């Protein structure tokens, strides 16, 4: 096998508790997004489109649906003998089991896996943002600088900088300072949570982090500050495209509504930098004699007998006659029965809005119904 120049490790173990009931039965990366995708599709597609053919996916919280979805990675052209997707759950060893204690620990526990590919560099990704990025350009920048670590950064509005890890860099983009969620940010260059490490260096850093009892085993809080303290070559790579958080109900909702405009910033119809997904086979959707669909995204398998406006309908959704769905996101298999109303709402997988029921959010708050739940009239 050829030595790998760069492999990717995708952190997909978090519960994503800020997505509330949507992650009750599955990990955040497995939540459906944009009708036919799951959140992890965007990172995996970025990998493939960047020529990275070896990806370790670190899972922990309720991984069953995620595992089944990823399979061998065939849906992303990642089922290659010389690499491919590997699902890396915490393992049980002679000395008992050990869950991942933090992002850095998750990588630490998989040192053997990474070593088996003998890579030059390791790309660390987290799967809760919507963006298209060519990691190979970032890798070229990283190599050109001879960097130990390169962090992808994006300019954010100054008033929001305090929500991120922000960094100051010199004129060569070498990072001079890094602050995790500072109350008084000195920079508006925010970390996107995308790192490329020289593997030799990362292996050493992780080992010493592992032995540090005071560490929380987190990249942002522990690993990166430690590297800066030791004056490692840490650079910032400036990214300037679309990049949106989808980790809260509000951001998850807003990012999807953004897909509905005529020329969206994030374009799922683009032929280059395609987004791949693993889909089931459903017949085309059917819009009945009484159906109305405007300004919406509709997946295969849907039956629409009512009115659908400014909404996203995932596969196999049913909207009964006389029902109204407006400014809402219906996840796979959701049913809106006759005469029901769904406005500014997210309806979970297989959830049901009963006949004549009204499930409506307001300007302040999106209404969310969990997977398989039921909302009845009256």
């Amino acid at each position, binding site marked *: 096998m050829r030595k790998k120049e760069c492999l990717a490790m995708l952190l997909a173990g978090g519960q994503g508790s800020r997505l509330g009931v949507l992650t009750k039965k599955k990990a955040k990366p497995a939540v459906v997004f944009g009708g*036919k995708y799951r959140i992890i599709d965007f990172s995996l597609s970025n990998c493939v489109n960047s020529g990275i053919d070896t990806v370790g996916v670190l899972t922990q919280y309720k991984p069953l649906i995620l595992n089944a979805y990823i399979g061998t990675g065939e849906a992303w052209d990642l089922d290659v003998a010389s690499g491919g997707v590997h699902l890396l759950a915490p393992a049980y060893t002679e000395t008992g089991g050990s869950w991942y204690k933090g992002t850095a620990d998750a990588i630490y526990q998989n040192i053997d896996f990474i070593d088996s590919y003998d890579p030059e560099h390791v790309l660390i990704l987290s799967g809760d943002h919507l963006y298209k990025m060519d990691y190979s350009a970032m890798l070229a920048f990283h190599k050109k600088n001879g960097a130990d670590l390169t962090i992808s950064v994006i300019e954010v509005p100054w008033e929001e900088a305090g929500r991120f890890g922000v960094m100051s860099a010199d004129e060569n983009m070498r990072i001079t300072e890094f602050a995790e969620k500072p109350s008084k940010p000195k920079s508006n260059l925010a970390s996107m949570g995308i790192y490329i490490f020289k593997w030799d260096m990362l292996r050493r850093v992780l080992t010493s982090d592992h032995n540090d009892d005071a560490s929380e085993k987190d990249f942002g809080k522990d690993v990166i500050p430690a590297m800066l303290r030791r004056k490692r070559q840490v650079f910032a790579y400036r990214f300037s495209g679309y990049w949106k958080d989808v980790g809260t109900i509000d951001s998850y909702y807003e990012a999807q509504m953004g897909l509905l405009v005529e020329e969206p910033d994030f374009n799922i119809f683009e032929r280059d930098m395609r987004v791949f997904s693993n889909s089931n086979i459903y017949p085309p959707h059917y819009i009945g004699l009484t159906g109305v669909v405007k300004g919406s995204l509709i997946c295969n398998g849907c039956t629409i007998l009512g009115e659908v406006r400014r909404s996203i309908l995932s596969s196999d959704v049913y909207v009964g006659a006389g029902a109204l769905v407006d400014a809402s996101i219906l996840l796979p298999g959701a049913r809106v029965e006759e005469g029901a109303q769904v406005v500014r709402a997210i309806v979970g997988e297989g959830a049901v809005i009963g006949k004549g029921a009204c499930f409506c959010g307001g300007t302040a708050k999106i209404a969310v119904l969990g997977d398989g739940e039921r909302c009845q009239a009256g």
Partner: protein
Amino acid sequence: MKRMMGIIAANYQSDSFAQLTKDRPVASLPFGGRYRLVDFPLSNMVNSGIFTVGLITPYMYRSIMDHVGVGKEWALSRKVGGMFILPGSIYGLKNVQGKFLLRDILRNRPYLDRSNFDLVVISGCSKVFNIDFQDVAEQHTASGADITLIYKKTDAACGTKELYLDVAENGEVTAAHDAPIGADNCFMDAFIMSRDLLLKFISWYEETSYLDLTDIIVENLSHLYVSGYEFTGYMGNADSVACYMRCSQELLNPEVNRELFRPDRPIITKIQDSPPAKYWPAASVRNALVSSGCIIKGTVENSIIFRGVTIEEHAVVRNAVVMQNTVIHRESILENVICDKYAVIRPGVKLFGNPDAPILVGKGQDV
């Protein structure tokens, strides 16, 4: 569960489709918004537990091989059984009206020889239905018949060259006609027989292998016990342009749709990766099947829209079938039209066909 092997005749051509089948066999004609006709017999077999399927392929095999591949989507990419490519004979199939030419089976005899199944299910591609062949096999075995022909009671099968069966009260097929006179039992191009008998046919008729299997069966009705199996579900007939259009329109009937695309016996097809269909605020769509990847800005009524079609503003598509990746520009009107893949309808173009003789727009044609 009966253990059966399958044969699908996916090689025959037809001249009743005009340019729709110029470069493809009937089997790979797009149908129902995202399928090809061959998906129906393939899915029927797999859903009936038949995992050894021989596909008789045509000389123009690219479209069908592209679509079916090694049968992965149908779980036919297997170590035991799976899909077998059986190249059909090459000689002027277009002129021959047969679908089940003996010579195509003769040519692929090792497929039958090397197997140990008792029963063979044989199906054509141009009729559309969702059947459980296990039911047929059970009736076949219980009746003790040599051959069981599957039929549907209808005198409006629409096809140009149907076979109608006289079925006696005990279920025996006593005669066959090529018109529904005196019989409205339309043969569905699907039947079950024992592998042994099929091998016997091959030996008996080796010299006259240009014959069609169904002709041989009809010729031997008096020597054999040929039984009929009545199918009571929906059968669509896509045997000519007019039939294809009618059958496509029938999919807009929710009951037909539900029956054909039932979740417990799904029709499987090649997976394509398209985004959801996008409807613009001005879109106006009713009574339509629309596939993923479409961008709909105009008006669509009573139509089947395949994957990746763009319908621009103020364009109107009515009673039409629009195949993959066709672009219909603004202010054009299409009524009673079938557009093949990758066609382009220029702005303002107006095409009005007749429901019984729809206008055809060829593959990649720029109108």
